[in-house]
Protein backbone atom coordinates (compact mmCIF):
# COMPACT_ATOMS: atom_id res chain seq x y z
CA UNK A 1 0.00 0.00 0.00
CA UNK A 2 1.53 3.31 -0.93
CA UNK A 3 1.92 6.33 1.29
CA UNK A 4 -0.84 8.41 -0.25
CA UNK A 5 -3.41 5.68 0.10
CA UNK A 6 -2.39 5.09 3.71
CA UNK A 7 -2.72 8.74 4.54
CA UNK A 8 -6.07 8.96 2.78
CA UNK A 9 -7.49 6.07 4.76
CA UNK A 10 -6.16 7.59 7.97
CA UNK A 11 -7.72 10.92 7.08
CA UNK A 12 -11.07 9.40 6.32
CA UNK A 13 -11.24 7.32 9.44
CA UNK A 14 -10.26 10.34 11.54
CA UNK A 15 -13.00 12.33 9.85
CA UNK A 16 -15.40 9.48 10.54
CA UNK A 17 -14.55 9.67 14.21
CA UNK A 18 -15.20 13.41 14.28
CA UNK A 19 -18.50 12.95 12.47
CA UNK A 20 -19.48 10.29 14.98
CA UNK A 21 -18.82 12.76 17.76
CA UNK A 22 -20.78 15.48 16.05
CA UNK A 23 -23.71 13.13 15.52
CA UNK A 24 -23.82 12.05 19.14
CA UNK A 25 -23.34 15.61 20.38
CA UNK A 26 -26.24 16.83 18.26
CA UNK A 27 -28.51 14.07 19.45
CA UNK A 28 -27.53 14.37 23.11
CA UNK A 29 -27.77 18.14 22.81
CA UNK A 30 -26.35 19.09 26.20
CA UNK A 31 -23.46 21.45 25.49
CA UNK A 32 -22.20 21.51 29.09
CA UNK A 33 -21.46 17.84 28.82
CA UNK A 34 -21.00 17.13 25.16
CA UNK A 35 -20.43 20.24 23.07
CA UNK A 36 -20.45 19.87 19.31
CA UNK A 37 -17.35 20.34 17.18
CA UNK A 38 -17.83 24.06 16.53
CA UNK A 39 -17.28 25.27 20.09
CA UNK A 40 -14.55 22.72 20.67
CA UNK A 41 -12.48 23.93 17.76
CA UNK A 42 -13.19 27.55 18.63
CA UNK A 43 -11.92 26.91 22.14
CA UNK A 44 -8.96 25.10 20.68
CA UNK A 45 -8.03 28.06 18.54
CA UNK A 46 -8.44 30.36 21.47
CA UNK A 47 -6.28 28.42 23.87
CA UNK A 48 -3.65 27.63 21.29
CA UNK A 49 -3.18 31.35 20.91
CA UNK A 50 -2.90 31.91 24.67
CA UNK A 51 0.44 33.01 26.12
CA UNK A 52 0.95 30.09 28.49
CA UNK A 53 -0.01 27.46 25.93
CA UNK A 54 3.55 26.37 25.06
CA UNK A 55 4.49 26.29 28.73
CA UNK A 56 1.64 23.98 29.62
CA UNK A 57 2.28 21.75 26.66
CA UNK A 58 5.99 21.58 27.30
CA UNK A 59 5.52 20.77 30.95
CA UNK A 60 3.34 17.78 30.13
CA UNK A 61 5.59 16.62 27.34
CA UNK A 62 8.65 16.82 29.53
CA UNK A 63 6.96 14.88 32.30
CA UNK A 64 5.82 12.20 29.87
CA UNK A 65 9.21 11.99 28.20
CA UNK A 66 11.08 11.80 31.44
CA UNK A 67 9.01 8.96 32.79
CA UNK A 68 9.05 7.27 29.40
CA UNK A 69 12.82 7.32 29.28
CA UNK A 70 13.12 6.11 32.84
CA UNK A 71 10.67 3.29 32.21
CA UNK A 72 12.15 2.24 28.90
CA UNK A 73 15.64 2.09 30.30
CA UNK A 74 14.83 0.42 33.59
CA UNK A 75 12.22 -1.91 32.08
CA UNK A 76 14.55 -2.98 29.29
CA UNK A 77 17.60 -3.51 31.44
CA UNK A 78 15.75 -5.39 34.14
CA UNK A 79 13.70 -7.28 31.56
CA UNK A 80 16.86 -8.41 29.79
CA UNK A 81 18.33 -9.63 33.05
CA UNK A 82 15.09 -11.17 34.32
CA UNK A 83 14.42 -12.94 31.05
CA UNK A 84 17.80 -14.65 31.11
CA UNK A 85 18.12 -15.37 34.77
CA UNK A 86 15.25 -17.07 36.50
CA UNK A 87 16.54 -16.24 39.96
CA UNK A 88 16.55 -12.52 39.19
CA UNK A 89 13.12 -12.83 37.65
CA UNK A 90 11.80 -14.51 40.79
CA UNK A 91 13.45 -11.93 43.02
CA UNK A 92 11.88 -9.13 41.00
CA UNK A 93 8.50 -10.82 40.90
CA UNK A 94 7.12 -9.54 44.22
CA UNK A 95 8.24 -6.03 43.34
CA UNK A 96 6.67 -6.15 39.90
CA UNK A 97 3.50 -7.73 41.21
CA UNK A 98 3.31 -5.05 43.87
CA UNK A 99 3.86 -2.30 41.32
CA UNK A 100 1.28 -3.86 39.07
CA UNK A 101 -1.25 -4.00 41.87
CA UNK A 102 -0.65 -0.93 43.97
CA UNK A 103 -3.43 1.52 43.14
CA UNK A 104 -1.96 4.84 42.13
CA UNK A 105 -4.24 6.58 44.59
CA UNK A 106 -2.70 4.89 47.59
CA UNK A 107 0.83 5.86 46.64
CA UNK A 108 0.06 9.43 45.73
CA UNK A 109 0.23 10.27 49.42
CA UNK A 110 3.63 8.67 49.68
CA UNK A 111 4.70 10.41 46.52
CA UNK A 112 3.70 13.71 48.08
CA UNK A 113 6.08 13.09 50.95
CA UNK A 114 9.01 11.93 48.94
CA UNK A 115 8.74 14.14 45.90
CA UNK A 116 7.60 17.60 45.05
CA UNK A 117 4.11 17.76 43.61
CA UNK A 118 5.43 18.17 40.09
CA UNK A 119 7.02 14.75 40.35
CA UNK A 120 3.87 12.91 41.33
CA UNK A 121 2.79 12.44 37.68
CA UNK A 122 6.24 11.08 36.96
CA UNK A 123 6.05 8.68 39.84
CA UNK A 124 2.59 7.40 39.04
CA UNK A 125 3.48 7.05 35.37
CA UNK A 126 6.42 4.95 36.43
CA UNK A 127 4.28 2.73 38.58
CA UNK A 128 1.77 2.19 35.80
CA UNK A 129 4.21 1.86 32.95
CA UNK A 130 7.13 -0.07 34.36
CA UNK A 131 5.42 -3.47 34.67
CA UNK A 132 4.21 -3.28 31.07
CA UNK A 133 7.67 -2.62 29.71
CA UNK A 134 9.40 -5.06 32.03
CA UNK A 135 7.04 -7.94 31.37
CA UNK A 136 7.20 -7.30 27.67
CA UNK A 137 10.98 -7.48 27.52
CA UNK A 138 11.18 -10.40 29.92
CA UNK A 139 8.75 -12.28 27.73
CA UNK A 140 10.63 -11.33 24.58
CA UNK A 141 13.90 -12.57 26.01
CA UNK A 142 12.26 -15.88 26.86
CA UNK A 143 11.11 -16.18 23.25
CA UNK A 144 14.58 -15.66 21.79
CA UNK A 145 15.62 -18.43 19.41
CA UNK A 146 17.86 -20.70 21.50
CA UNK A 147 19.49 -21.98 18.32
CA UNK A 148 20.87 -18.55 17.50
CA UNK A 149 22.02 -18.08 21.08
CA UNK A 150 23.83 -21.39 20.89
CA UNK A 151 25.51 -20.29 17.67
CA UNK A 152 26.61 -16.98 19.19
CA UNK A 153 28.07 -18.63 22.26
CA UNK A 154 29.85 -21.32 20.31
CA UNK A 155 31.41 -18.81 17.96
CA UNK A 156 32.48 -16.60 20.87
CA UNK A 157 30.62 -13.62 19.51
CA UNK A 158 31.45 -10.86 22.04
CA UNK A 159 28.57 -9.83 24.32
CA UNK A 160 28.28 -6.39 22.75
CA UNK A 161 28.07 -7.75 19.24
CA UNK A 162 25.66 -10.45 20.38
CA UNK A 163 23.45 -7.78 21.88
CA UNK A 164 23.42 -5.55 18.82
CA UNK A 165 23.45 -8.18 16.09
CA UNK A 166 21.34 -10.92 17.57
CA UNK A 167 19.44 -10.13 20.76
CA UNK A 168 18.28 -6.57 20.15
CA UNK A 169 17.03 -7.10 16.59
CA UNK A 170 15.06 -10.14 17.74
CA UNK A 171 13.77 -8.25 20.73
CA UNK A 172 12.88 -5.22 18.66
CA UNK A 173 9.25 -6.20 18.05
CA UNK A 174 8.75 -6.78 21.75
CA UNK A 175 10.54 -3.58 22.58
CA UNK A 176 8.45 -1.62 20.10
CA UNK A 177 5.19 -3.16 21.28
CA UNK A 178 6.15 -2.50 24.88
CA UNK A 179 7.28 1.05 24.26
CA UNK A 180 4.18 1.94 22.33
CA UNK A 181 1.90 0.53 25.00
CA UNK A 182 3.95 2.25 27.68
CA UNK A 183 4.01 5.59 25.93
CA UNK A 184 0.29 5.49 25.30
CA UNK A 185 -0.29 4.79 28.93
CA UNK A 186 2.10 7.43 30.13
CA UNK A 187 0.26 10.23 28.34
CA UNK A 188 -2.88 9.20 30.07
CA UNK A 189 -1.43 8.70 33.50
CA UNK A 190 0.57 11.91 33.41
CA UNK A 191 -2.49 13.92 32.43
CA UNK A 192 -4.68 12.15 34.97
CA UNK A 193 -2.16 12.84 37.71
CA UNK A 194 -1.89 16.44 36.63
CA UNK A 195 -5.65 16.69 36.97
CA UNK A 196 -5.34 15.34 40.49
CA UNK A 197 -2.34 17.27 41.67
CA UNK A 198 -2.58 20.43 39.56
CA UNK A 199 1.05 21.40 39.14
CA UNK A 200 1.61 24.99 38.02
CA UNK A 201 1.90 24.12 34.32
CA UNK A 202 0.52 21.08 32.55
CA UNK A 203 -2.24 20.02 30.21
CA UNK A 204 -3.96 18.20 33.07
CA UNK A 205 -3.82 21.27 35.28
CA UNK A 206 -5.55 23.36 32.63
CA UNK A 207 -8.13 20.62 32.17
CA UNK A 208 -8.84 20.52 35.86
CA UNK A 209 -9.34 24.26 35.96
CA UNK A 210 -11.59 24.25 32.93
CA UNK A 211 -13.55 21.42 34.39
CA UNK A 212 -14.15 23.20 37.67
CA UNK A 213 -15.42 26.15 35.63
CA UNK A 214 -17.67 23.88 33.57
CA UNK A 215 -15.92 24.86 30.34
CA UNK A 216 -16.47 21.49 28.73
CA UNK A 217 -15.41 22.75 25.32
CA UNK A 218 -12.07 23.78 26.77
CA UNK A 219 -11.68 20.42 28.49
CA UNK A 220 -12.33 18.69 25.21
CA UNK A 221 -10.00 20.86 23.22
CA UNK A 222 -7.26 20.03 25.70
CA UNK A 223 -8.27 16.42 25.20
CA UNK A 224 -7.81 16.88 21.47
CA UNK A 225 -4.34 18.22 22.15
CA UNK A 226 -3.61 15.18 24.30
CA UNK A 227 -4.75 12.94 21.44
CA UNK A 228 -2.56 14.85 19.02
CA UNK A 229 0.38 14.37 21.38
CA UNK A 230 -0.24 10.65 21.51
CA UNK A 231 -0.57 10.42 17.76
CA UNK A 232 2.65 12.37 17.33
CA UNK A 233 4.38 10.12 19.84
CA UNK A 234 3.27 7.12 17.80
CA UNK A 235 4.40 8.65 14.54
CA UNK A 236 7.71 9.62 16.03
CA UNK A 237 8.19 6.11 17.31
CA UNK A 238 7.38 4.52 14.00
CA UNK A 239 9.70 6.99 12.33
CA UNK A 240 12.53 6.13 14.69
CA UNK A 241 12.05 2.42 14.15
CA UNK A 242 12.08 2.68 10.38
CA UNK A 243 15.01 5.08 10.59
CA UNK A 244 17.01 2.65 12.71
CA UNK A 245 16.24 -0.21 10.36
CA UNK A 246 17.16 1.84 7.30
CA UNK A 247 20.28 3.25 8.91
CA UNK A 248 21.40 -0.18 9.94
CA UNK A 249 20.99 -1.54 6.45
CA UNK A 250 22.67 1.51 4.89
CA UNK A 251 25.56 1.31 7.30
CA UNK A 252 26.01 -2.38 6.63
CA UNK A 253 25.79 -1.79 2.91
CA UNK A 254 28.32 1.08 3.06
CA UNK A 255 30.76 -1.03 4.98
CA UNK A 256 30.45 -3.76 2.39
CA UNK A 257 30.94 -1.26 -0.42
CA UNK A 258 33.96 0.33 1.24
CA UNK A 259 35.40 -3.08 1.78
CA UNK A 260 34.87 -4.23 -1.77
CA UNK A 261 36.57 -1.11 -3.01
CA UNK A 262 39.63 -1.75 -0.90
CA UNK A 263 40.12 -5.45 -1.42
Amino acid at each position, binding site marked *: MNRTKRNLILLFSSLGLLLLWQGIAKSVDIPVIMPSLGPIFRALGFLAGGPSFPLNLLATILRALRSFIIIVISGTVLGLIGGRNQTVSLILKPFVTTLKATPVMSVI*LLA*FIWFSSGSVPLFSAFLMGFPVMYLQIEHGVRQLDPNLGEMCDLYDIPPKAKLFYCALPSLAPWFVAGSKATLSMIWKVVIASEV*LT*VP*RYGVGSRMQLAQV*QLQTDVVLSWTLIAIALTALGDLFFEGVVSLVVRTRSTVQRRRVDALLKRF
Partner: protein
Amino acid sequence: QEADPGTIRLGVMAGPTGFSSAGLDQPDIDIEVFPSPNEVIARLANGELDMAALPTNVAANLYNKGVGIRLAAVIGNGMLSLISSKGGMDVRDLYGATLHLPGAGSTPDQMARLLLKWADLVEGKDIFFDYSVAAPAQLAQLLIAGKVDYALLPQPFVSMVLDRSPQAAQLLDVQALYAELTGSATYPMSVLVVSEKFASTYPSSFRRVLAGYKNSVDWVNGNPALAAQKIEDLGIMAKTLAQNAIPHCNLVYESASEAKDAVTFYFEQLYSLDPSSIGGSVPGDELYL
Protein backbone atom coordinates in the same frame (compact mmCIF):
# COMPACT_ATOMS: atom_id res chain seq x y z
CA GLN B 1 12.66 37.33 73.05
CA GLU B 2 11.31 35.14 70.22
CA ALA B 3 13.45 34.16 67.23
CA ASP B 4 12.47 35.04 63.67
CA PRO B 5 10.43 32.16 62.23
CA GLY B 6 11.51 32.97 58.68
CA THR B 7 8.92 32.32 56.02
CA ILE B 8 5.63 31.15 57.46
CA ARG B 9 4.15 28.48 55.23
CA LEU B 10 0.38 28.39 55.01
CA GLY B 11 -1.31 25.62 53.05
CA VAL B 12 -4.79 26.06 51.63
CA MET B 13 -6.90 23.97 49.35
CA ALA B 14 -8.18 25.12 46.00
CA GLY B 15 -11.82 26.07 46.52
CA PRO B 16 -13.74 28.17 49.01
CA THR B 17 -11.74 26.92 52.01
CA GLY B 18 -8.92 29.03 50.69
CA PHE B 19 -10.94 32.21 50.00
CA SER B 20 -10.43 33.81 53.34
CA SER B 21 -6.65 33.77 53.07
CA ALA B 22 -6.72 35.98 49.97
CA GLY B 23 -6.43 39.19 51.99
CA LEU B 24 -3.34 38.17 53.93
CA ASP B 25 -0.85 40.92 53.20
CA GLN B 26 2.09 39.99 55.39
CA PRO B 27 5.16 39.51 53.21
CA ASP B 28 6.63 36.64 55.23
CA ILE B 29 3.58 34.41 54.75
CA ASP B 30 3.93 32.05 51.85
CA ILE B 31 0.56 30.73 50.70
CA GLU B 32 0.72 27.35 48.97
CA VAL B 33 -2.38 26.09 47.20
CA PHE B 34 -3.06 22.37 46.98
CA PRO B 35 -5.78 20.63 44.99
CA SER B 36 -6.89 18.17 47.66
CA PRO B 37 -6.73 17.79 51.42
CA ASN B 38 -4.38 14.82 50.99
CA GLU B 39 -1.49 16.94 49.92
CA VAL B 40 -2.06 19.43 52.72
CA ILE B 41 -2.20 16.61 55.22
CA ALA B 42 0.99 15.04 53.95
CA ARG B 43 2.86 18.33 54.22
CA LEU B 44 1.46 19.08 57.65
CA ALA B 45 2.42 15.67 58.96
CA ASN B 46 5.78 16.12 57.36
CA GLY B 47 6.42 19.45 59.04
CA GLU B 48 6.62 21.27 55.70
CA LEU B 49 3.65 23.51 56.57
CA ASP B 50 3.23 25.67 59.62
CA MET B 51 -0.47 26.39 59.20
CA ALA B 52 -3.27 25.13 57.01
CA ALA B 53 -6.91 25.70 56.24
CA LEU B 54 -8.74 22.38 56.36
CA PRO B 55 -12.20 20.86 56.63
CA THR B 56 -13.12 20.66 60.29
CA ASN B 57 -13.41 16.90 60.54
CA VAL B 58 -10.00 16.45 58.90
CA ALA B 59 -8.47 18.59 61.63
CA ALA B 60 -9.97 16.36 64.32
CA ASN B 61 -8.87 13.28 62.48
CA LEU B 62 -5.29 14.50 62.16
CA TYR B 63 -5.21 15.49 65.79
CA ASN B 64 -6.47 12.07 66.86
CA LYS B 65 -3.89 10.37 64.67
CA GLY B 66 -1.18 12.05 66.67
CA VAL B 67 -0.15 14.76 64.23
CA GLY B 68 0.87 17.71 66.36
CA ILE B 69 -1.66 20.38 65.37
CA ARG B 70 -3.93 22.81 67.17
CA LEU B 71 -7.17 24.39 66.02
CA ALA B 72 -6.58 28.11 65.77
CA ALA B 73 -9.85 29.44 64.43
CA VAL B 74 -13.00 28.60 62.53
CA ILE B 75 -12.84 30.33 59.15
CA GLY B 76 -15.91 29.07 57.36
CA ASN B 77 -19.36 28.01 58.39
CA GLY B 78 -21.82 25.73 56.64
CA MET B 79 -22.57 26.52 53.00
CA LEU B 80 -24.29 23.43 51.68
CA SER B 81 -27.53 23.24 49.76
CA LEU B 82 -29.63 20.43 48.45
CA ILE B 83 -30.45 21.26 44.86
CA SER B 84 -32.86 19.73 42.44
CA SER B 85 -32.30 20.17 38.77
CA LYS B 86 -36.00 20.54 38.01
CA GLY B 87 -38.12 23.26 39.50
CA GLY B 88 -41.37 22.72 41.35
CA MET B 89 -40.02 19.92 43.49
CA ASP B 90 -40.63 19.35 47.13
CA VAL B 91 -38.48 17.78 49.82
CA ARG B 92 -40.93 14.91 49.98
CA ASP B 93 -40.12 13.99 46.39
CA LEU B 94 -36.72 12.90 47.68
CA TYR B 95 -38.32 9.81 49.14
CA GLY B 96 -37.17 6.87 47.12
CA ALA B 97 -34.99 9.06 44.92
CA THR B 98 -31.23 9.07 44.38
CA LEU B 99 -29.24 11.85 45.97
CA HIS B 100 -25.83 12.53 44.46
CA LEU B 101 -23.02 13.46 46.79
CA PRO B 102 -19.59 14.76 45.85
CA GLY B 103 -17.28 12.21 47.46
CA ALA B 104 -17.89 9.65 50.16
CA GLY B 105 -16.76 10.89 53.54
CA SER B 106 -16.85 14.52 52.47
CA THR B 107 -18.70 17.14 54.50
CA PRO B 108 -21.76 17.02 52.21
CA ASP B 109 -21.87 13.26 52.69
CA GLN B 110 -21.60 13.53 56.46
CA MET B 111 -24.25 16.21 56.58
CA ALA B 112 -26.60 14.18 54.42
CA ARG B 113 -26.19 11.20 56.72
CA LEU B 114 -26.79 13.28 59.81
CA LEU B 115 -29.97 14.74 58.38
CA LEU B 116 -31.13 11.28 57.37
CA LYS B 117 -30.49 9.97 60.84
CA TRP B 118 -32.43 12.78 62.45
CA ALA B 119 -35.27 12.18 60.02
CA ASP B 120 -35.27 8.47 60.88
CA LEU B 121 -34.73 7.45 57.30
CA VAL B 122 -32.52 4.65 56.06
CA GLU B 123 -30.07 5.00 53.20
CA GLY B 124 -30.55 2.27 50.65
CA LYS B 125 -34.26 1.98 51.44
CA ASP B 126 -35.90 5.36 51.75
CA ILE B 127 -33.32 7.21 49.73
CA PHE B 128 -30.28 6.24 47.73
CA PHE B 129 -26.88 7.87 47.82
CA ASP B 130 -24.70 7.95 44.75
CA TYR B 131 -21.02 8.92 44.88
CA SER B 132 -20.12 8.09 41.34
CA VAL B 133 -19.29 11.65 40.41
CA ALA B 134 -16.80 12.69 43.02
CA ALA B 135 -15.84 16.10 41.72
CA PRO B 136 -18.37 18.77 42.76
CA ALA B 137 -17.74 20.57 39.45
CA GLN B 138 -18.81 17.55 37.46
CA LEU B 139 -21.84 17.08 39.64
CA ALA B 140 -22.75 20.67 38.96
CA GLN B 141 -22.35 20.00 35.27
CA LEU B 142 -24.72 17.08 35.43
CA LEU B 143 -27.25 19.09 37.42
CA ILE B 144 -27.19 21.84 34.83
CA ALA B 145 -27.64 19.26 32.11
CA GLY B 146 -30.56 17.77 33.98
CA LYS B 147 -28.88 14.37 34.08
CA VAL B 148 -28.97 14.28 37.86
CA ASP B 149 -32.10 15.06 39.83
CA TYR B 150 -30.80 15.80 43.30
CA ALA B 151 -27.45 16.67 44.72
CA LEU B 152 -26.06 18.11 47.89
CA LEU B 153 -23.39 20.62 46.94
CA PRO B 154 -21.17 23.19 48.59
CA GLN B 155 -20.57 26.72 47.39
CA PRO B 156 -19.58 28.01 44.90
CA PHE B 157 -21.14 25.22 42.90
CA VAL B 158 -24.56 25.93 44.33
CA SER B 159 -24.57 29.45 42.96
CA MET B 160 -23.06 28.20 39.73
CA VAL B 161 -25.88 25.74 39.15
CA LEU B 162 -28.56 28.19 40.17
CA ASP B 163 -27.09 30.85 37.87
CA ARG B 164 -26.75 28.66 34.86
CA SER B 165 -29.81 26.50 34.97
CA PRO B 166 -33.20 28.18 35.03
CA GLN B 167 -34.93 24.98 36.16
CA ALA B 168 -32.65 24.28 39.10
CA ALA B 169 -33.83 25.22 42.53
CA GLN B 170 -32.65 24.95 46.07
CA LEU B 171 -34.75 22.39 47.92
CA LEU B 172 -33.09 22.66 51.29
CA ASP B 173 -30.86 25.13 53.03
CA VAL B 174 -28.83 22.65 55.06
CA GLN B 175 -27.67 25.33 57.52
CA ALA B 176 -31.19 26.36 58.37
CA LEU B 177 -32.26 22.77 58.87
CA TYR B 178 -29.24 22.09 61.07
CA ALA B 179 -30.07 25.09 63.20
CA GLU B 180 -33.69 24.04 63.48
CA LEU B 181 -32.91 20.47 64.43
CA THR B 182 -30.01 21.08 66.81
CA GLY B 183 -30.46 24.54 68.15
CA SER B 184 -26.85 25.24 67.27
CA ALA B 185 -26.76 28.24 64.95
CA THR B 186 -24.59 26.65 62.29
CA TYR B 187 -21.77 24.15 61.87
CA PRO B 188 -18.13 24.94 61.28
CA MET B 189 -16.99 23.64 57.91
CA SER B 190 -13.45 24.85 57.66
CA VAL B 191 -10.84 25.67 60.25
CA LEU B 192 -7.38 27.10 60.44
CA VAL B 193 -4.92 24.74 62.09
CA VAL B 194 -1.40 25.43 63.24
CA SER B 195 1.39 23.03 63.95
CA GLU B 196 1.92 22.68 67.67
CA LYS B 197 5.60 23.36 67.28
CA PHE B 198 5.05 26.63 65.46
CA ALA B 199 2.47 27.88 67.93
CA SER B 200 4.67 27.18 70.92
CA THR B 201 7.99 28.31 69.41
CA TYR B 202 6.78 31.54 67.82
CA PRO B 203 3.75 32.69 69.83
CA SER B 204 3.97 36.32 68.80
CA SER B 205 4.40 35.64 65.11
CA PHE B 206 1.48 33.28 65.42
CA ARG B 207 -0.70 35.96 67.02
CA ARG B 208 0.31 38.35 64.26
CA VAL B 209 -0.79 35.85 61.61
CA LEU B 210 -4.11 35.28 63.33
CA ALA B 211 -4.77 39.00 63.50
CA GLY B 212 -3.87 39.30 59.84
CA TYR B 213 -6.18 36.46 59.02
CA LYS B 214 -9.09 38.09 60.81
CA ASN B 215 -8.54 41.25 58.76
CA SER B 216 -8.27 39.18 55.64
CA VAL B 217 -11.66 37.57 56.20
CA ASP B 218 -13.25 40.98 56.70
CA TRP B 219 -11.56 42.35 53.62
CA VAL B 220 -12.65 39.45 51.43
CA ASN B 221 -16.23 39.66 52.61
CA GLY B 222 -16.22 43.43 52.08
CA ASN B 223 -14.51 43.53 48.69
CA PRO B 224 -15.61 40.49 46.69
CA ALA B 225 -14.41 41.91 43.38
CA LEU B 226 -10.89 42.75 44.55
CA ALA B 227 -10.67 39.54 46.54
CA ALA B 228 -11.76 37.48 43.54
CA GLN B 229 -8.87 38.86 41.52
CA LYS B 230 -6.48 37.97 44.32
CA ILE B 231 -8.03 34.51 44.59
CA GLU B 232 -7.46 33.90 40.92
CA ASP B 233 -3.88 35.16 41.15
CA LEU B 234 -3.18 32.73 43.96
CA GLY B 235 -4.61 29.88 41.91
CA ILE B 236 -7.40 29.12 44.35
CA MET B 237 -10.29 29.54 41.94
CA ALA B 238 -11.28 31.46 38.82
CA LYS B 239 -12.25 35.09 39.35
CA THR B 240 -15.74 34.98 37.89
CA LEU B 241 -16.77 32.03 40.00
CA ALA B 242 -15.25 33.33 43.19
CA GLN B 243 -16.79 36.76 42.97
CA ASN B 244 -20.32 35.42 42.80
CA ALA B 245 -19.70 32.85 45.47
CA ILE B 246 -18.01 34.92 48.17
CA PRO B 247 -21.24 36.35 49.59
CA HIS B 248 -22.66 32.84 49.96
CA CYS B 249 -19.66 31.17 51.46
CA ASN B 250 -20.24 32.14 55.07
CA LEU B 251 -16.65 33.17 55.58
CA VAL B 252 -16.13 34.04 59.24
CA TYR B 253 -13.38 34.39 61.75
CA GLU B 254 -14.12 32.88 65.15
CA SER B 255 -11.26 32.24 67.48
CA ALA B 256 -10.85 28.76 68.90
CA SER B 257 -12.23 29.70 72.26
CA GLU B 258 -15.31 31.38 70.76
CA ALA B 259 -16.04 28.47 68.49
CA LYS B 260 -15.12 25.65 70.82
CA ASP B 261 -18.67 24.73 71.86
CA ALA B 262 -20.07 24.70 68.34
CA VAL B 263 -17.11 22.69 67.11
CA THR B 264 -17.33 20.16 69.93
CA PHE B 265 -21.04 19.80 69.33
CA TYR B 266 -20.41 19.22 65.64
CA PHE B 267 -17.76 16.62 66.44
CA GLU B 268 -20.19 14.85 68.76
CA GLN B 269 -22.71 14.62 65.94
CA LEU B 270 -20.12 13.23 63.57
CA TYR B 271 -18.96 10.81 66.24
CA SER B 272 -22.45 9.47 66.67
CA LEU B 273 -22.58 8.91 62.94
CA ASP B 274 -19.24 7.17 62.57
CA PRO B 275 -16.38 7.48 65.06
CA SER B 276 -13.79 6.96 62.34
CA SER B 277 -14.86 10.13 60.55
CA ILE B 278 -13.12 12.18 63.22
CA GLY B 279 -10.43 9.66 64.05
CA GLY B 280 -12.15 7.65 66.76
CA SER B 281 -12.92 10.11 69.51
CA VAL B 282 -14.15 13.63 70.15
CA PRO B 283 -11.03 15.72 70.79
CA GLY B 284 -10.73 17.29 74.21
CA ASP B 285 -9.84 20.86 75.16
CA GLU B 286 -6.20 20.40 74.19
CA LEU B 287 -7.14 20.76 70.53
CA TYR B 288 -8.19 24.36 70.95
CA LEU B 289 -5.74 27.16 71.37
